[in-house]
């Protein structure tokens, strides 16, 4: 949008983008006003920082790569090990911190792959309409007819456990949501006057799709993706808990809880902290996404 050249000579970057800047200021203002959005932002930033600088921040980085300290097993939280130690004598705090990185890439890949499959299909279905849309949407519906976790369970069970298979399974389960979203958005946009106009003056389909429809899908897409980051992380952790997820020694929160479970209730800290990490991460992404929706897509607030 901003790249469109106009006949009036622009004076400086600020002036040229005054409208956009004003818009973003308003967004920022609205976002700041909401406590829950700011809480979400804080949690997401914290998560990203830990993921980026994980090994540097972890007090015992070697414990995250499968060290063995059998003399230091299952120690309760203390000053040296604020979250206690696990059954191999590893520092749980370090493992939780480094686990953020695992979770980040799990979330990114799942949402990324899902969007990569779902968005083109959705735009295509919505724009072409007719038979093609019917076929795409019916297949989408079939995938949506089984709750994601049950479907992912079946896929992982057949591919075999492991984090890669988990991610594959969840990506396969995740894309239909994007098709639905983008399809309905495209359907609505297609009828808009300016699209009709573009078509009337002879713009070709790819141009319409990329210049007019896709940019208008961006904000709902961002909202959905940020919410999905959290849910994807949660689902992967769930599969890890069932015993089909990440493999040792790479620290993954769900798998940690799965092991920790047989150490309940006497060694409670082992399950407590990884779970707290999952909870706060997912909460962060959800609040953040919720806040974004409020400002980007005010009509659907509360849905």
């Amino acid at each position, binding site marked *: 949008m901003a790249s469109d050249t106009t006949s009036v000579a622009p004076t400086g970057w600020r002036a040229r983008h005054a409208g956009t800047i004003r818009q973003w200021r308003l967004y920022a203002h609205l976002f700041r006003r909401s406590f829950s959005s700011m809480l979400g932002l804080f949690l997401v930033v914290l998560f990203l920082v830990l993921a980026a600088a994980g090994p540097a921040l972890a007090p015992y980085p070697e414990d995250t790569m499968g060290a063995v300290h059998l003399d230091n097993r299952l120690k309760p939280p203390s000053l040296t090990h604020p979250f206690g130690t696990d059954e191999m004598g590893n520092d749980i705090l370090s493992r939780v911190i480094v686990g953020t990185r695992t979770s980040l890439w799990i979330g990114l890949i799942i949402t990324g792959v899902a969007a990569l499959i779902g968005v083109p299909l959705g735009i295509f279905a919505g724009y072409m309409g007719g038979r093609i849309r019917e076929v795409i949407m019916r297949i989408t519906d079939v995938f949506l007819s089984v*709750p994601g976790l049950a479907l992912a369970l079946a896929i992982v069970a057949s591919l075999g456990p492991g984090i890669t298979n988990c991610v594959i399974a969840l990506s396969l389960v995740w894309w239909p949501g994007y098709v639905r979203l983008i399809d309905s958005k495209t359907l609505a946009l297609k009828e808009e006057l300016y699209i009709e106009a573009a078509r009337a003056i002879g713009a070709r389909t790819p141009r319409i799709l990329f210049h007019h429809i896709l940019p208008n899908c961006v904000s709902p897409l961002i909202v959905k993706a940020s919410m999905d980051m959290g849910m994807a992380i949660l689902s992967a952790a769930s599969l890890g808990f069932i015993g089909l997820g990440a493999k040792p020694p790479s620290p993954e929160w769900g798998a940690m809880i799965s092991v920790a479970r047989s150490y309940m*209730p006497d060694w409670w800290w082992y399950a407590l902290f990884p779970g707290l990490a999952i909870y706060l991460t*997912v*909460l962060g992404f959800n609040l953040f996404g919720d806040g974004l929706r409020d400002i980007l897509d005010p009509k659907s607030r509360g849905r």
Partner: protein
Amino acid sequence: MVLFVGKRLVLFGFMLLGLLTIMFLITNVAPGDPAKLMAGQNATQDMVETIRREYGLDKSLPEQYAVYIGGVLRGDLGRSIVSTKPVVDELLRYFPATLELVLVAMGLGILIGVPFGMLSAVYRDSWIDHATRIFSVSGVALPAFWFGLLLQLYFAVHLEWLPVSGRLELITPPPEPITRLYLVDSLLRGEFDTFREALQHIILPALVLSFPCLASILRVNRAEMLEVLQSDYIVAARANGIPAFRIITVYALKNAMLPTLAIIGLRFGWMLGSTVLVETVFDWPGIGLYAVQSALYSDFKPVLGVTLLIGFCFIFINFLIDLAYGWLDPRLRTQ
């Protein structure tokens, strides 16, 4: 209307067939060999073949698919290689436990979600609204398995108020089956001690299961209430001096209920999926636990059966919702 229902029925059948095909393909890319597992550790190759033949695993994939589809049409979902029994029989045995859990969880979700959704719409942007919002987002964000473990730790182990897991005490005999829902059966049979036990056992798992559902019911209800409260006739009712409480509970709530019902329907299927986690945590002998246990043994027919059952419930409920909407809104029928 007949045409509308007919169309939907065709679609319904198509969805089931699609689901079946996709699931069949997914569960058959497996490298594992459940026959080998069941033949025993020392079994020779020809003993493994005996089992493969018995379960039709020696046939080609298209043949197996044809056999499976044929079976499904006759109401046969194959045999579990672990238990050697027909999957249908096992589903019938495990499903009531799951259904009971899901129904109680749904009840909790509605009982808590609807009033709080109402409150937060009426007191919009107050502290109640904010607290409710964080609470409802939390509901979705809480890892069910972890939350379950924490509840067990606190209520069962620490306070000793509630049992840790299972449907009844270790060796309490279940009530004579009528509906196979222990809560209902024990009441019908007049076994009040068993009823109390069953109730104690179901509280924690149902609470965990209801949380995400509760959150979405709450949010939808809130949104609908907001919309209804701003509509003309409510404003008119208010102007006519009808008491606020009556307006909210009678007029507004009634109108906000339809979308809420729709979300309840959607969430029902979703809950069936989540039982995979909750039943694992609480050792609840339902289809979720059955699916997980079978998955860990690479026993695919049961996994397939459970997924199909859940998918069927889900599609069926959506079908009903569709019909309800079509009935209420004639414009939809012509589309």
